[in-house]
């Protein structure tokens, strides 16, 4: 950007800033995406989505996510109950997978993005390379939190034996899905180049 070029977000083509007339929304000549030097309103959009997901994270974990009916009795369980159940059954591998996907990953995304956003706001210039790597990791793991929702969907389809036993979703499923979507959108609206702008402006 300092050298008079803007790179397209979508296809990476470099466009000379001189070719762009002022006061005009330019489009990339190769892929026709709108061109911006940085993603528009990146910081405020990402902040909004991260705060939203932090708030939704509470009901997602405190409310029950699944209901098991067994011979007429109803039993609600939260995400943590499900994980503890696996540890009691000595299924440590599965317990760890679910714990990582549904608790650790969303928590890591929220905390990690907050650190990155704070360091842009206060122009902290250290550990930039690690923060960029962390952002790539957050981008990559985003989708894997949907795991628990898929498991509940499959359970409620397959475990349906009339009055004997059946499985149903419970309210936290909606909150949890919202958390995953918000954090994924937060990674999309965030522009990691903002981290490095503080560095290149003060050589």
């Amino acid at each position, binding site marked *: 950007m300092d050298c008079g*070029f803007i790179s397209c977000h979508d296809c990476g083509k470099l466009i000379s800033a001189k070719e762009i007339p002022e006061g005009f929304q330019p489009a990339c000549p190769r892929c026709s995406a709108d061109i911006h030097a940085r993603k528009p309103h990146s910081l405020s959009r990402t902040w909004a989505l991260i705060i939203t997901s932090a708030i939704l994270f509470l009901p997602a974990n405190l409310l029950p996510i699944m209901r098991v009916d067994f011979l007429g009795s109803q039993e609600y369980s939260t995400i943590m109950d499900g994980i503890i159940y696996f540890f009691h059954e000595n299924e440590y591998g599965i317990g760890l997978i679910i714990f990582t996907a549904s608790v650790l990953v969303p928590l890591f995304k929220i905390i990690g993005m907050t650190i990155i956003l704070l360091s842009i706001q206060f122009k902290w210039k250290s550990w*930039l390379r690690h923060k960029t790597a962390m952002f790539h990791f957050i981008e990559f793991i985003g*989708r894997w939190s949907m795991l628990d929702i898929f498991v509940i969907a499959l359970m*409620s389809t397959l475990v349906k034996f009339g009055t004997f036993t059946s499985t149903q979703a419970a309210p936290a499923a909606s909150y949890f*899905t919202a958390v995953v979507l918000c954090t994924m959108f937060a990674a999309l609206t965030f522009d990691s*180049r903002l981290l490095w*702008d503080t560095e290149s402006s003060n050589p």
Partner: protein
Amino acid sequence: MSDTPPLIACHACDLLLEKPDVATGQKLFCPRCKSQLYQKKTDSVNKVLAISFSGLLLYIPAVFAPLLTLNAAGMNQDGSIFDAFLSFYQQKYYFVAITLFLTSIFFPLFKLSLLLSITIQIKLRLYSRSLPFLFRAANSLDEWGMPDVYLIAIFVTIIKISSMASIHYNLGFICFLFLTMMTRATTSALDPEIFWQEIDRMKKYSTKTAAND
């Protein structure tokens, strides 16, 4: 003046670099932020064409054929990917149901059919104005198709219910397994830079012939 300078900008930190020659299979990393910039792949268009076509053949049985059959207390119960979406819908969790529909049913189909139509257009040199838009859509919506996450969820479910019922694996399970592999394979065979260059070349050719007409 050439319209593309021999420079590239790092997508993660915007460092401007001279575009080096990358040998096939080599990866290029940004010297400043260590993000991966580019990996050159061979024969990308042909591979994506073949893989997306075989993926599409598997799609209908993978989504609509039953994955597993459970047998417990003398009763049988089976379910497909589509049934799993329906069960959330019937429980009136519409928001979750829509997300489920998009991530497990719509986007895998969308990605494979988009890539198939793009590669066919490139192979046959059929340029249309929508081509850059289609390829852009295929790239930016890629992460929203989650058959790989779903596959792990199927394995978790199998372990969860293996203690309470006997499980039979059905056609849908095998097809979904291979569909997931095909979707992953398109991503690893896809070299966006090659595709953009092809699309760019076709665009120039089509405008040139239009001018000659």
